[in-house]
């Protein structure tokens, strides 16, 4: 697992100071630090899109809708879709760069799309852990399809009124009593590791 190039990419690309990521003797970023750094970027972008684009235009300025069927409805892409589309693009691009091989997804114990419910044991345990232990992340290892992964789960919190109202009102939601600040799901990041 060559993590140095990833670390450089992350630090250069995202403007983080190199010193903010612990670098070990072989100039490699520990896998946990890499996952934390990736999550920091994902979560920041996600928060900004939700607050400064979706919530501002939909709730404050009331000029446009956000919709799951954004093309038909000529509307904004939902924050969860924005996140997923980014994840799909990473998946596609990372496949061609074996050294930068990681994947991530947004899941929930109360998913609107049932395909986004936790599936592996690590996901099930991780999502439960972050929902019950606010402010804490969950780290573990798992083997999927013969490959060992470092798997990290981070809480995904309802940061804006649109998160809560959309989920509570959606026709396919299994939970209609979310409140602002609730843990509504989690981000699962997987990085392949040797052994």
């Amino acid at each position, binding site marked *: 697992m060559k993590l140095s190039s990833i670390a450089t990419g992350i630090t250069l690309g995202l403007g983080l100071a190199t010193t903010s990521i612990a670098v070990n003797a072989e100039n490699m970023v520990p896998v946990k630090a890499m996952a934390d750094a990736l999550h920091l970027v994902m979560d920041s972008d996600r928060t900004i899109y939700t607050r400064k684009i979706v919530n501002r235009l939909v709730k404050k300025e009331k000029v446009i809708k956000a919709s799951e069927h954004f093309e*038909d409805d000529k509307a904004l892409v939902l924050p969860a879709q924005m996140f997923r589309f980014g994840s799909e693009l990473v*998946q*596609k691009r990372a496949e061609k760069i074996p050294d930068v091989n990681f*994947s991530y997804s947004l899941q929930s114990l109360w998913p609107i799309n049932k395909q986004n419910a936790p599936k592996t044991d690590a*996901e099930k345990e991780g999502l439960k852990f972050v929902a019950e232990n606010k402010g804490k992340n969950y780290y573990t290892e798992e083997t*999927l399809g013969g490959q060992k992964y470092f798997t990290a789960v981070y809480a995904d919190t309802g940061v804006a009124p649109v998160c809560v109202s959309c989920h509570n009102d959606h*026709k396919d939601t299994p939970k209609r009593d979310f409140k602002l600040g609730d843990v509504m799901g989690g981000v699962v990041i*997987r990085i*392949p590791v040797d052994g």
Partner: protein
Amino acid sequence: MSKHLNAKLWIIWLCLVIGLMGYLAYTLTTGEDKQVFMPGELTGGHHQIGVSCNSCHGEAFSDRDAMQDKCESCHGDQRKKPFDSHPRTKFTDPRNADRLENINALYCVTCHVEHKEDIADNFGVTQPADFCVHCHADIGEDRASHKGMEFETCATAGCHNYHNNRSLYTEFLVKHMDKPELLEKPRVKEKEYASVLEEIMTYPHDRYPVQALDNDDADAPVSVKFSTDASIQDDWANSAHARSGANCTSCHSDPQSEAESASEWLQHPDDSSCKTCHDIETKTFMQGKHGMRLAVDLPAMKVSDAKLPMHEDMGHLKLSCNSCHQAHDYNVQTAAVESCLECHNDNHSNAYKDSEHYALWKKEIAGELPAGSGVSCATCHMPRVNMDVSDWLSRTVVQHNQNATLSPNEKMIRPACISCHGLGFSIDALADEQLIENNFNGRPSIHIESIDMAREDNQRYQQELNENSL
């Protein structure tokens, strides 16, 4: 004596074997027609390009990924748009590694095995019809309406399509559930090309500015004008080309050449001339059955190559832009009906002129009804659609890939049927094979329940919302 005979036989056998090996080796490496190696008949989707193994297999002995690239080189666009509900990225995600063990969704050939004509359905699918169950066995728990449904029913007309599952999603069904059979103002999309010409960067604005031209402006060399039937120039002068500034040399010159002199005159322009201004139309033409041979550098398809019933006397016709759009007058009304019916000789095509759709079309071209009221062959099979013409722009173009609205035919509902008809009526009509056969002369005798299910789900939702707000 017998020893001599044996030796002779051995020599003959050896020569035959060497000859056969030589023939096969030559065919495999350099020969153009490799059909001697064909392990089984190809489906209707690929039979036209069977002569060129490399079109699908890449070089001899290429691996599975190289073949997948070949699939995507022709079908990639169709998979991306309008929406692919089972993209590759879904399955390269490690959390779905177990699902790949059941069905390897990373490769087209997992479900679309070629050379197995006996087990392939109309859409070239060779998986058993219950393939959805591998991942969606518990759908009944998620959606009450789906409880107890048999797993070979998922892809029934009006329901699911593996590649574009959401073209008829629940909210869409709900939004259109109460629309009447015939809309109040049934109209298809308007043409847009003339109004967006300015924005098309690749259009040769400098050489052929948008302006109306007449016979006096024709820029063919004098020698050509004198040796050509005058009616040809008249046809051009009455065409949309002349009205918009496309002159003789727009087509009759090498599209790659910058020279404007008459010496560059090209007597017989081909599709590459059309492409200069009609790039998307040419591209989609080559994605469909009519132009797919050109897309893989094979000679154009002949009408006699078709598997569908065609008029025998048209068998010799080679398909290019000009086979449907007659040169010089380029009458799109002719291209939208008469060009099709000249060749197609099946019951659906032959019943068209007795249909209400044709009655409307006749009225439109007679000027008795407004533009967009009539229904030609092209209205449904080559509809005007909003298409991405680059990564950044989209505009209304005629979809020249006739297969984009077929296989399965529900793909026709959005771009064509619902411009004039309610969704429920459209779904039912397209599920009724008898009705299609007689070109919609009558009413659907089949009812697909997808809208009923969406209506029921919507009632459940409204009730839940009411309870929640109390």
